[in-house]
C-alpha cells in the first residue's frame, strides 16, 4: 500500500513538473531555467529570507492585492496585516507608472494597455510578463431567464444592438436590457477587449444622478435584475453581487464558468493576471526568485487560499 501511495504521489509530482514546464515553454516570458526550478520552491520563504529592508518593491492592481500581500507575508514571515504595509497598491495605471519609473520592482496586473506599452517604450523600458492566475470574464442574467448559453458572437450582437429580444437567442419574447459599466472601469475594459469594440457597442442604459454641487449627470445605470437584463463582471467578484442568489451565470458556447473551467482554460473568455517586471532584471535578482516562488506549489497554494485560480496548465 505504501508503495502504491508513493507511486501515486510521485506521478502527481511528475504531472505537476510537466505542467509547469509546459507553462514556461508555452509562450510565457519567464526564464526557462527558472520554470524548471519552480517545483523546488516549496518552503523557499525560508530560502529567500526576505526582510522588510530587502523585499523588492511590489505594487499592483487592487483586485490582486490580497494575493501579493499574502505572498509578502509568506516571504517576510509576517502577519499579513503587517506585511501589507510593505507593499504598494497603486491600481493598474499607477502600478505600471511606478514600474516604468523604477519606483516598483514588480507589479501584479492585467495585460498592459497600448498606452502603457507606449509609455514604457518612451522610457526605454521593456516589460517581461508572466501569467500566473486565470480569471473569467462572465455574463449573468435573471435566474428565471431560460437562456443558459450564448456564444461570443451572440453577446457581440446583443451589445451592438443587433439582437434585441431574448427570443432571438432561444429565450422568451422579452426585450433584452444590456447593462454596461462606467467607461473607465475594469469590467468595461473587459467587454471592449473580449466581446465588442468601443466603437461598436450600443449606448448604455443610463440614470440621472446628481453629483456634488448639484450637477446633474447621466450615469451608467446599475444592473437591475429585471426579467430581460444582462450584465457582466469578473468571475472573482460575481459572488459579491448584491443579488447573487437571483442571477445565473451564462455559459459561453456551452461551457459554464467555474474554478475548473477557468483554471484549465476551457472557459472561452479567460482574463489572465500577470506578474510584470522590467526585462532588464538580472538573472540572479531576488525579483526573479519571487517570480519562481509565485509559480511554485507554495505560490499556488497562497493563490487558492485567497480565492484566486492559479494557472494549472
Amino acid at each position, binding site marked *: 500500500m505504501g508503495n502504491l501511495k508513493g507511486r501515486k504521489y510521485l506521478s502527481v509530482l511528475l504531472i505537476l513538473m510537466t505542467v509547469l514546464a509546459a507553462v514556461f515553454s508555452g509562450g510565457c516570458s519567464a526564464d526557462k531555467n527558472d520554470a524548471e526550478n519552480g517545483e523546488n520552491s516549496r518552503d523557499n520563504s525560508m530560502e529567500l529570507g526576505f526582510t522588510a529592508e530587502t523585499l523588492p518593491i511590489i505594487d499592483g492592481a487592487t483586485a490582486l*492585492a490580497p494575493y501579493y500581500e499574502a505572498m509578502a507575508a509568506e516571504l517576510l514571515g509576517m502577519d499579513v496585516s503587517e506585511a501589507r504595509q510593505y507593499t504598494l*497598491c497603486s*491600481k493598474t495605471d499607477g502600478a505600471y507608472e511606478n514600474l516604468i519609473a523604477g519606483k516598483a520592482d514588480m507589479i501584479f496586473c492585467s495585460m498592459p494597455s497600448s498606452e502603457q506599452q507606449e509609455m514604457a517604450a518612451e522610457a526605454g523600458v521593456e516589460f517581461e510578463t508572466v501569467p500566473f492566475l486565470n480569471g473569467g470574464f462572465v455574463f449573468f442574467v435573471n435566474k428565471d431567464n431560460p437562456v443558459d448559453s450564448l456564444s461570443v458572437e451572440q453577446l457581440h450582437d446583443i451589445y451592438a444592438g443587433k439582437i434585441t429580444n431574448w427570443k432571438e437567442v432561444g429565450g422568451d419574447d422579452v426585450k433584452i436590457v444590456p447593462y454596461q459599466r462606467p467607461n*473607465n*472601469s475594469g469590467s468595461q475594459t473587459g467587454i471592449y477587449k473580449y466581446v465588442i469594440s468601443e466603437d461598436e457597442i450600443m449606448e448604455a442604459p443610463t440614470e*440621472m444622478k446628481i453629483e456634488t454641487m448639484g450637477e446633474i449627470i447621466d450615469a451608467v445605470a446599475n444592473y437591475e435584475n429585471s426579467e430581460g437584463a444582462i450584465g457582466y463582471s469578473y468571475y472573482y467578484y460575481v459572488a*459579491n453581487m448584491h443579488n447573487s442568489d437571483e442571477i445565473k451565470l451564462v455559459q459561453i458556447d456551452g461551457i459554464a464558468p467555474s474554478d475548473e473551467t477557468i483554471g484549465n482554460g476551457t472557459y472561452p473568455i479567460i482574463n489572465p493576471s500577470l506578474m510584470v517586471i522590467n526585462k532588464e532584471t538580472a538573472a540572479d535578482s531576488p525579483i526573479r526568485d519571487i517570480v519562481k516562488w509565485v509559480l511554485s506549489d507554495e505560490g499556488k497554494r497562497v493563490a487558492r487560499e485567497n480565492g484566486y485560480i492559479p494557472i494549472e496548465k
Partner: protein
Amino acid sequence: MDIFRLKNKKRISCFLSMVIIGALAVSGCAGNEQPGEAASGFLKHKEHKNYIVENPLKFERIMVDAEGNPLEDEADEGGDFYREYGILKVSGLRDKAVEKKINDRIAEKFKECVGSLPAYRGIKILLGDEKQLLNENIYTYQSFNCNNVLSVVMERNAGYRNESDGEKGDDVYFSQTETMNFDLNTGEEIGFSELFGDEEAYKYLNDSVKAFLSENNAQEEQGEDIYGTLIQTKPFEKLDSEQKYYLNDSYINLVMDYETPEFQTNMNSYSISIPWSQNIYLTENYFSESEDIYESDEPLAKCLIADVSGEEKRIYSYENEEGVEMMVRGSYRSTTPEFIQEKIEAFSANGFQGIDKELKKYYRQAAEECSRENCYGSCMKTVNVSAFGGYINYEEGIYASVTGHQSSWADTITYFDKNKSTQSVYRKSDSKKMELEDFFKNRQDCEKLVKEAMVKAVQRNFEENSGWISKDEALKDYVFGEGENKEKDLRFIDKMYDNICGMSLSGTYMSFLAENFSKGEEIFREIYGEDCPFSENSYIFTTGVYRLKYSEIGCENLSIFE
C-alpha cells in the same frame, strides 16, 4: 518513501489544525463572537419607538499637547510642523466613577492615536525608515448622545515627509477615524457584535453594505483617483465582529480603513452609512425613562428619528424658454407613501401656476432696457419630502426672479421677484394632514405653549450667538427683557403666531413658515416702529422665532412622542 511519510504527517497535522480551528470557530471560544450571535444589543428590527431621548450630558472640548496635557493656547506650533489636538471631556453623570472611566478611555484613545502610523497599505514603503512629521490634527466630537449611549469620534489627519537616505522624499498624508461607543450606565464600550438583537438585523446590515458597494461600483478599479473612493480588493462577505462604527441620529456609520483590508481606501478612512429604518432601529436596552443616571434636573429632551430608508429619488427638469430658465427640482425617497408620491407627480406636472407668464413679461422688459446678455430670468419650482418619526414633511415652492443691469458697472435692477411656498405635515399611519393643534396632547394648550416657546427660542438664539451680540444689551429693550417694551413684545409674539402658514418637523425642532422670508422683519417694524436691530442676525427675530426645540415646547405636552 520517508519523504512521502513526512508529507503525510504534514497533511495530517494540517488537517488536525483545520479541525481545531473549525471547532474553535463554531464554539466561539476564540473570543471572536460573530455579530449575529449576540444575545443582547440595542439595535433591533421592528420593535421601536419613533423617538430617542437626548442624554443631558455636558461636553467640553479641551486642547491638549501631544502627551494629552491641557493647553492654554489653542494650537501647539511645533517648530517645523503644525499640530493641533482636541479631546472631549464628558460630565453630567451621577456616577463619577463611570464618568471617569469614559474620560480616561477617550484620553487613552488619544494617546494610542497621536504620532502613530495607521497600518494602511504601503505606508511603510512610502515613508521609509526616516520620516518627518509635517502636520497632525486630532479632533474629537460626540456624534450621538441619546438613549444612554454615547458615540465619540476621533478624527485624525496627519502628514509626514519621507526623509530616508538623507533626501527629501515624497509627502504622505493620511486620515484616520477612531470610534468609541459607550454604555453610559457602566462606562463600558459597546462592541459591534453587541449591536445585534438577532440574525435578521445583522443580515440586513450586511445586505445594505453589499447594496451600497454594488450601487457605487466598488468592485471596479476606476481609472481616476477620487478622494475618499472605496474600492474592493476582494468580494465582500460580511462585517467583522469588531467592525469600527459610530452612530448619529439617522445612521449607523461603518468605518472602512486599514482594519478592513477587503477595501482599498487610499490612506483615508471611509464611512458607509446605513440609515435607521423599519429593519434596524435603536431599542431601549440601555435606557429606561424611570432610571435617571444624570445630574441634570431638566425634563427629557426627545428627538424624532429621521427615516432616510429607501433610495433617494431626484426630480429635475430644465428648459430655456425665450431666454428664461425654467427648472423643476425635488427629492423624495422610494419609501415615501403613495399618496405623497401622487402629490409630487401632480405638482411637477402642474406648470408654473401663471408665474411664468408674468416672469416672461418682465424678462422682455429687462431685455429691452438692459439687453439680453445683461439680464437673467429664472423660475424654479421645488418639491421636497422628508420623514421624521412617522410624520412626512411635504414642501412645495416657486421662486421666480428677473434681474438686469444696464451696463457691466451699473447696479443690478430687480424687475420681478416672487416666492411662494407651502409646508405641510402628514401622519404616515393614516395620511392625515396635521393641524398645529394636532401635535398637542391638549389642543387648547397649543397657542400658549407655542408662544412661550417662541420667547425661549429668541433667548436661546441670543445665547448661541453670544460671541457677536451681548445678550443683556440686546434683550434690554426687546422680547421679554427688562425694558419698557413688554406690551410690544407680547404683540410681536402674537403677530408672529398669527402669521404661521405652514410647518414641518425635524429631529429636534418644530419649524413654522410665514408667508415670506421677510415677514418677521415687517412685523418687527410694525410693532416696534423701527427696523430689526442686529441686521446681521435678524433671523433671531424672524426665522429664529419660528424654529422651536421640542424641549422648549415641552416634550411632555406633545402627542408626537406618544
